[in-house]
């Protein structure tokens, strides 16, 4: 279908076009909720079955990095909301600034996520043959706090004894398997979220380019609004992931 100005040929009016694009994005987000929903359900069932192992796994995440990332992402939602407002009020200079800030904050998030993943890789917490819950306490780095490690060892040993009072070695094997489930879900959920961030970054780069051409104003800003909806959704998913993965059963060791 040919295009006249910003109006695609299948539509009669710009309002109809905008309404369609927004409804389309909302429906897409509904499908995303259900897509993540399958993961959240798998997580919930296993959290219920293996509460202790999941607690130990969750405690091994870096709360400082996770919290920083949450703040970064909420800030990016703010700049995204600013972008939508700038477009709606025809602030053509401010719009690209806000969009670039959003993109940068998204990049910072992914960078911090990389640091966290690297840490888990060093601690042998990547699911697979070399997954080992006790790797860090058996191979401490010079920077690790010995008191913290001792407390972690005590907790794992207690949980293993609780799992199989007669033979704690078997209990440890079970605990290791269940913690591996936790980390499979951790990487599955945060990985899928990161993938959505990368797609969002691609969309941002596209609207930044278009905004430099001065294409968006009060009369036409559908792409900004639709990308904004997507970005906010990805943020909201992270808020849930942060609470579920980092905060449940968090305790000082």
């Amino acid at each position, binding site marked *: *279908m040919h295009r006249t100005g910003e109006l695609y*040929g*299948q*539509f*009669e009016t710009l309002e*109809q076009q905008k*309404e*369609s694009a927004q*409804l*389309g994005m909302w*429906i*897409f987000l*509904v*499908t*995303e909720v*259900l*897509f*993540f*929903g*399958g*993961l959240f*359900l*798998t997580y919930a*069932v*296993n959290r219920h*079955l*293996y509460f202790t192992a999941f607690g130990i796994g969750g405690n091994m995440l870096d709360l400082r990095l996770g919290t920083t990332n949450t703040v970064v992402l909420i800030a990016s939602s703010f700049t995204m909301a600013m972008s939508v407002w700038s477009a709606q009020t025809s602030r053509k200079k401010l719009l690209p600034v806000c969009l670039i800030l959003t993109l940068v904050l998204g990049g910072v998030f992914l960078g911090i996520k990389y640091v966290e993943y690297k840490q888990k890789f060093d601690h042998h917490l990547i*699911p*697979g*043959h070399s997954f080992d819950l006790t790797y860090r306490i058996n191979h401490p780095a010079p920077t690790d706090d010995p008191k913290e490690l001792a407390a972690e060892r005590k907790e794992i040993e207690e949980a293993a004894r609780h799992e199989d009072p007669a033979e704690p070695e078997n209990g440890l094997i*079970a605990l290791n*398997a*269940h913690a*591996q*489930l936790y980390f*499979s*879900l951790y990487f*599955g959920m945060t990985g899928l979220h990161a993938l959505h961030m990368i797609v969002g970054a691609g969309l941002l780069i596209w609207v930044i380019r278009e905004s430099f051409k001065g294409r968006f104003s009060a009369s036409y800003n559908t792409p900004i609004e639709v990308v904004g909806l997507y970005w906010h959704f990805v943020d909201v998913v992270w808020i849930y992931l942060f609470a579920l993965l980092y905060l449940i059963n968090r305790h000082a060791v």
Partner: protein
Amino acid sequence: MPPSPDNKFPRDHYLNATYGIRSWLLTTDHKRIALLYLISVTFFFFIGGILATLIRIHLLTPSGALVTPETYNKLFTMHGVAMIFFFLIPSIPAVLGNFLIPMMIGAKDLAFPKINLLSWYIYIVGGCFVLYSFSTGGLDTGWTFYTPLSSVYSNSAVTPAVIGIFINGFSSILTGLNFIVTIHTMRAPGMTWFRLPLFAWAHYATSLVMILGTPVVAITLLLAGLERMFHLGFFNPAMGGDPILFQHLFWFYSHPAVYIMILPSMGVISEIIPTFARKPIFGYSFIAGSSIAIAVIGFLVWAHHMFVTGESTYAALTFSFLSYLVAIPSAVKVFNWTSTLYKGSISWDAPMLYALGFIGLFTIGGLTGLFLACLGLDIHIHDTYFVIAHFHYIMVGGAVMGYVGGLHFWWPKITGKLYPEALSRIAAITLFVGFNLTFFPQFILGYLGMPRRYHSYPPEFQVLNVLSTAGASILAIGYLLPMIYLTWSMRYGKVAGQNPWPATGLEWKTDSPPPTENFHVTPQVDWEPYDYNNRPDLGLAAGRPLAPAHGDD
């Protein structure tokens, strides 16, 4: 068939608007994309059909006539995967729905034409992965991919198949999204919600299932695939995972997926019946509402596939009750179609034969579904040929009959040509006879205890199995005939004109084949749907009641 007022073949239409392979592969015209889908789903129907033929030949003798047990496992698995994911689910929505929904509501195209083309490419990419799986060792897990068989123990090409079905899911999601937005925002002036054709209502309900169910099966198959590729343990009991969880997640989509297959077909029947009974449809709002009801209740019944997995009795009772509940909106449709026929002026054109066949076969399939929803009886017939017969009555007797009937009904609109009438009636009757001979014996086999998915059976079951295979041969002729004469008619058929039947829908008020923008002027709708009593423009004898004069109502 009454003569149409203007039997001229239009000079400019969507088929000759542009030429060349690029103009087809890069088209955003919903009508051309529908034809791309028509060719692709027919291809997968052929593959699934060949596999079905091999299964039926193998089961001619009790010890199995053709292949090894391992190969037999692959045959029924690949038959299921090809037919369900690559034929039945896209068939009516992506071919007929794609072609007709914009025209039925008076729009120039779907809301997102590029996304529409994208969903076809996604389908093709997914299909290539699955074909790769089929041709590099095949697949033997059953179409249900139960873990840990699929994720740990199977030695067949599971990974590419899972990837292919995962990818293909997004084709379905995008089609559903496109339909919902289009029906919301693209209706012509005067096309209110309760003037929508029932075909559009059925597709709206189907789209709801597509967007709400498909993402769940996508993530489930992704997890099962990751489990297989990276030795994770989500659903593997040896690693603490829960295989029953996989079944819940799988059926949360795959039961509603049955409604993705049957609802569009019900929409087709709701168009055909009033057209060939020359009467307004009986209970329009009830048929429309029952489509939505089926979609909604359909999401609440999935665990009736799992009565023998050891789920709690309370859960089983609830799911049994909810499964019975789906029968109500389904029966509402059947009764309303029958009431539409009552005192109608019925003509026996081929689409009508398919529609009448649908009503009978769907009724049998639906009622035997109630047997399976019954907790006690299901223990006896679970995983037997009774189940096979039941869902083939719904999917082949229902969904495919509706698809082929719909293809006939709208063929003059799609190609501008009429198909040969006598031959098409013979084909419809052949299909009906062949279908019943294939699948009715399977009800008896299942009730007597023959389990599904076995490559051999006790000798006393042979007579019924031979009958079934004989029926399958007739069925095959019933499918080949329309393929041949429909293709033939594209070149040699009589010119159809705008409205050959005649029917009341908006799609019949434009040329056949339609112009690229569907209508030369945006239509203004000021009539009620299926109002055969007040449509002098259809060229039916004016002023005379359309229903036969005898009797009074």
